[in-house]
């Protein structure tokens, strides 16, 4: 039993994980407080013959305290989350010179279109590979996410990337992997009877390896 | 605490309005949300695909519907008259105005059915013969919104017809106006919704 986040291999993942642990600590403390309090009260104030409860309708001071403290904690968390969210998803923070890929989800495959050696989508040397996503490490990657039929969700756990692919929309998603390795794209949104089987391999190459891989694919695609 | 002051005081028993009327208001809130859902979707879809909408009057017969709108507004007036007659115990007035309201409502429905038939059989739109619910978002939203309104009118006309029959049996009077008032609330609501629909579907 290994209940942990999978290792993180992306730049955004660092701060996402950090936020996760911060929230875990805060909620953990609240959890202990509440659950501990309940157990303690159950033992301490359990009914006894002839005992009489303390008559009170409440305390405005306490009400204010437990309104304001959660509100402050939550406001701080919210503000921090909003900043991070804007960093990750805000359209003004989309990297300008990222390497672009087109990823099209369909029942039950991911088709990835590569920009080819000219590094531009929509040109003659583009080629499409089914269920294999290769890209270089330490480089800004933007995928243009589309769907042919129903809503899918593009999920690479190790890169902390998740975005729904919606038919009729092209949604840009960007990330930057920090290590080479082999991962998987999973579909995270129920998309039909093959939902669980809609996986694709992800290979993060070094820059040189990626060029080599792309060159090896291009002639096949040119036919 | 708060209740200390009220202990033993003259009891509170809700609003000074009879229950059926409160119930109808509450129900109308729900109806507002139903039409808000439809109209909201209409707005979103239309903004999202403005080029698939026809110019006002290109497909829809605005003059006929404008006349129909006028009929519905008239029926609201006669409904008010019917309630006023009931309050005064004017039996002849109750019968006359309830009957008029029913007929106006029924005529409205008749015109709408005629309009639908014309659209489905004789209009062509975007290359396909017949303007139907399957004719793009324009057709889909048009028939859904006007159709549901028409359904509400139909329910209203049925209730009005029943109220009219009761009027002939002498059911209503100065001491029995609640039914007419509550039905009137519903009828005015349906009228109001139509004015909004007519504006956004036919005129804009």
């Amino acid at each position: 039993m290994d209940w942990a986040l999978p290792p993180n291999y992306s730049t955004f993942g660092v701060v996402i994980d950090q936020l996760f642990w911060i929230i875990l600590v805060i909620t953990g403390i609240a959890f202990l407080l509440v659950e501990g309090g309940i157990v303690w009260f159950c033992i301490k104030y359990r009914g006894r013959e002839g005992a009489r409860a303390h008559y009170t309708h409440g305390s405005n001071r306490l009400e204010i305290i437990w309104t304001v403290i959660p509100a402050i904690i939550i406001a701080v968390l919210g503000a921090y989350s909003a900043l991070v969210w804007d960093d990750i998803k805000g359209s003004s923070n989309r990297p300008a010179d990222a390497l672009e890929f087109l990823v099209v989800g369909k029942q039950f495959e991911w088709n990835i279109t590569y920009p080819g050696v000219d590094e531009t989508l929509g040109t003659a040397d583009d080629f499409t590979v089914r269920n294999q996503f290769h890209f270089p490490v330490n480089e800004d990657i933007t995928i243009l996410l589309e769907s042919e039929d129903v809503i899918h969700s593009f999920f690479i756990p190790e890169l902390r990337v998740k975005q729904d692919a919606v038919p009729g929309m092209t949604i840009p998603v960007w990330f930057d992997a920090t290590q080479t390795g082999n991962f998987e794209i999973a579909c995270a949104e129920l998309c039909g009877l093959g939902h669980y089987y809609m996986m694709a391999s992800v290979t993060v190459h070094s820059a040189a390896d990626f060029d080599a891989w792309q060159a090896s694919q291009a002639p096949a695609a040119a036919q | 605490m708060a209740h200390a002051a009220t202990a033993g005081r003259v009891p509170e028993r809700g609003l000074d309005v009879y229950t059926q009327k409160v119930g109808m208001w509450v129900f109308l809130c729900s109806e507002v949300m139903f039409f808000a859902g439809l109209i909201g979707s209409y707005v979103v879809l239309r903004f999202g695909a403005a080029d698939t909408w026809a110019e006002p009057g290109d497909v829809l017969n605005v003059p006929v519907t404008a006349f129909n709108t006028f009929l519905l507004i008239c029926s609201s007036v006669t409904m008010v008259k019917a309630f006023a007659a009931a309050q005064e115990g004017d039996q002849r007035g109750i019968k006359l105005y309830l009957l008029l309201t029913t007929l106006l409502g029924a005529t409205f429905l008749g015109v709408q059915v005629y309009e639908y038939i014309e659209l489905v059989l004789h209009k062509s739109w975007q290359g396909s013969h017949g303007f139907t619910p399957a004719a793009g978002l324009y057709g889909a939203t048009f028939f859904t919104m006007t159709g549901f309104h028409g359904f509400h009118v139909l329910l209203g006309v049925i209730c009005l017809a029943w109220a009219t029959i009761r009027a002939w049996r002498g059911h209503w009077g100065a001491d029995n106006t609640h039914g007419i008032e509550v039905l009137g609330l519903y009828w005015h609501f349906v009228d109001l919704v139509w004015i909004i629909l007519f504006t956004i579907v036919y005129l804009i």
Partner: protein
Amino acid sequence: MATIVAEATGQAILHEEHEQSFLRKYIFSTDHKVIAIQFLIYTLFFLMIGGLLAMLMRYQIAWPARGELPLGGIFPESMVASGYILPEFYNALVTMHGSVMVFLAIMPMLVGVWANYLIPLQLGTHDMAFPRLNMLSFWAMVPAGILTLASFFVVGGAAGAGWTLYAPLSARPDLTGVGLGQILWLAALVFIGLSSILGSVNYITTTINMRAPGMTWMRMPLTIWSLFITAILALLAMPVLSAAGIMLIFDQTIGTSFFLPEGGGQPLLWQHLFWFFGHPEVYILILPAMGFTSEILSVGSRKPVFGYKAMVLALVSIAFLGFIVWGHHMFQSGMNPMLGLTFTVSTLFIAVPSAIKTFNWMGTMWRGNLQLHSAMLFAIGFVAMFAIGGLSGVFMASTPVDIYIHDTYFIVAHIHYVLFGGSLFALFGAIYFWYPKMFGRMMNETMGKIHFWLTFVFFNLVFFPMHGVGMVGMMRRIYDSTGYAHLQGIEDTNAIITWAAFGLFASGFLFAFNFFWSLKKGRKAEANPWNATTLEWQTPSPPKHGNWEEIPVVYHGPHEYSHPDVEDKDWLAQNERPDVVSPAAGSH
């Protein structure tokens, strides 16, 4: 005048009782108490069905490669083939488990049963404002139930697009193989909407206009407050779902394309409409539970509810905020990320009233004289479990973290801590608590306590590990997790969860046995077995048709326990005249 009329009707109702046929008395009854019991039987049945679907689902998740489904042979080949649950059947299980539990079990049990039963009794009136509409609201649920059950047996099987019915998957039969099943479920939803709206009109009108003399707004029990606010939410949210559902039916049947991009429609529009309904729905599913808990905790602690006004304010603000947070279900949906920011803010705000309520429940227990009977145990269990559900919600509200945990088992854990640990615990508590009033007999305490501990332990064994599975990254609604590299190593956890789920399901039968056994063999209940203050306990158990010979007059707030001026007992009923009990008590 209204009073006189009401009283006159009350007398009429009382006299009518003897002349009614069996059919009028038990089947097409307009008595709110009978309707409540009809709802109770109905919802318990669907609770079992929903549970059964979950068991099948859990079997598949734990042992995806095994096949050999026990009794698999009784299923048609289109559901289970060679002992394997087929993926399309699995999707139907996922979808219908959620749908049945939300719409046919929990929601009607919270509202249909208890709003019907408690509103007239706790407010001190003879019946609902519109008894015949009330009857209709139950009978509208019957076709909904029949359509739902029938949908499993039509060609293509039951709906399989998730309980959220995301279009286009739900709108295009060619993409799922499910055609009629989906339409039947949507039709059922329209009936459920009708039932819910009719019910809400009744609850709201009755609460506004038919309170007993002296029952001011701030003297209403918190149960009534929560049910009243819930009714408002349902009244305003359900019609939006009905409208959306009808549009979806049109997309399926008559060739419109509201939600289909090929025809210019927008899949995200469905999500906006659904969650505009769906988030208030979440509160519809929890507010009444909060009300029952407040009530039971107060009675069980022999103390007034701590911070009654704050509780009411929290309810009202939840209701208001509930309508502007729907977008937090859609952070990863492709909606403009800037909208995500707005929804984060409103979402975090809605956490505050929930925190207030939790602390006030603890405040109610503080320095109390806790009577730990089954109902009280479930109420305390509610607070403990709801707290976990609320805290795990913070992870989702933080948008960056949501990127990772969205659509994983973390969400599944969260929703079940709120819906099962929350709503269902409170519902069990409510049934143990009001059973004597409903049926005139007590439920067996020993069985009740065993039921609580089994439920509590198994529940946590089932759903706590799901947080872990979610952290590992297991996606929701997947039929077989074993093919994924990042999901290696969670098989044991999934198997443990499944065994615990079987235990949880089985412990439900102990409850069912207790429920039916006590109908005949339970100890006879006196009028007020818990020494409670609210009006329903001041009538016989069970109350007669028409509830009151004479409408009670209310002199006190709802939870006057352990009042220092009242001697020889620790409670003061709402309708006890202050000068009779003790002159000094009149000041409270």
